[in-house]
């Protein structure tokens, strides 16, 4: 079964960049959303979703198969990934 991964990020945040890079390098498909560059009409809604998931305003917020990991933390990413090879 393929893992379902969403990365909520800020365009200004190096750890968000490293998180996306880590998933790309690991050949895991993911959806990435830069909250700060969304058009105003969508920003509040998406940001609120990320805050509700993470309990704060820190990024990145990574959702792997429904589990939320806040911060760049490959060990935790691996714990929650079930796809082939892990």
């Amino acid at each position: 079964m393929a893992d379902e991964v969403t990365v909520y990020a800020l365009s200004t945040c190096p750890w968000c960049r490293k998180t996306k890079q880590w998933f790309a390098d690991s050949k895991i498909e993911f959806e990435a959303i830069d909250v700060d560059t969304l058009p105003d009409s969508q920003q509040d809604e998406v940001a609120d979703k990320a805050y509700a998931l993470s309990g704060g305003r820190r990024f990145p917020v990574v959702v792997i198969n429904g589990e939320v990991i806040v911060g760049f933390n490959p060990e935790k990413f691996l714990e929650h990934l079930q796809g082939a090879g892990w």
Partner: protein
Amino acid sequence: MGTAERKESLRYLYDKVVDPLGFKFTPDAALAEELLEQEVKLEQDLGAPYCPCQMRSRVRGEDMRIVCPCIPFHRAHFDKMKRCWCGLFVHKDVTDPDSLPQFPPDEE
């Protein structure tokens, strides 16, 4: 003031703030450059060097707590991580910043 000059002045100003709090600039020079660059851009666009790794609200009182260096407002959490959320600052005894993961305040 150009971006390079402003980066240098932020370095100077921040150093005086974080030193008494037990922190120093990360030894990861590339990371520090990237973060300061982003902060200068945020300051140019939004009026304050906001945290590049935390999102602003529309409430001034909240946003002022994520202007860099935000260590005074998140101290227990950052002391536990031995770094600030972005990793621009680390505890003075840290020599290998890559060994310090990011984790939220309610986790060990």
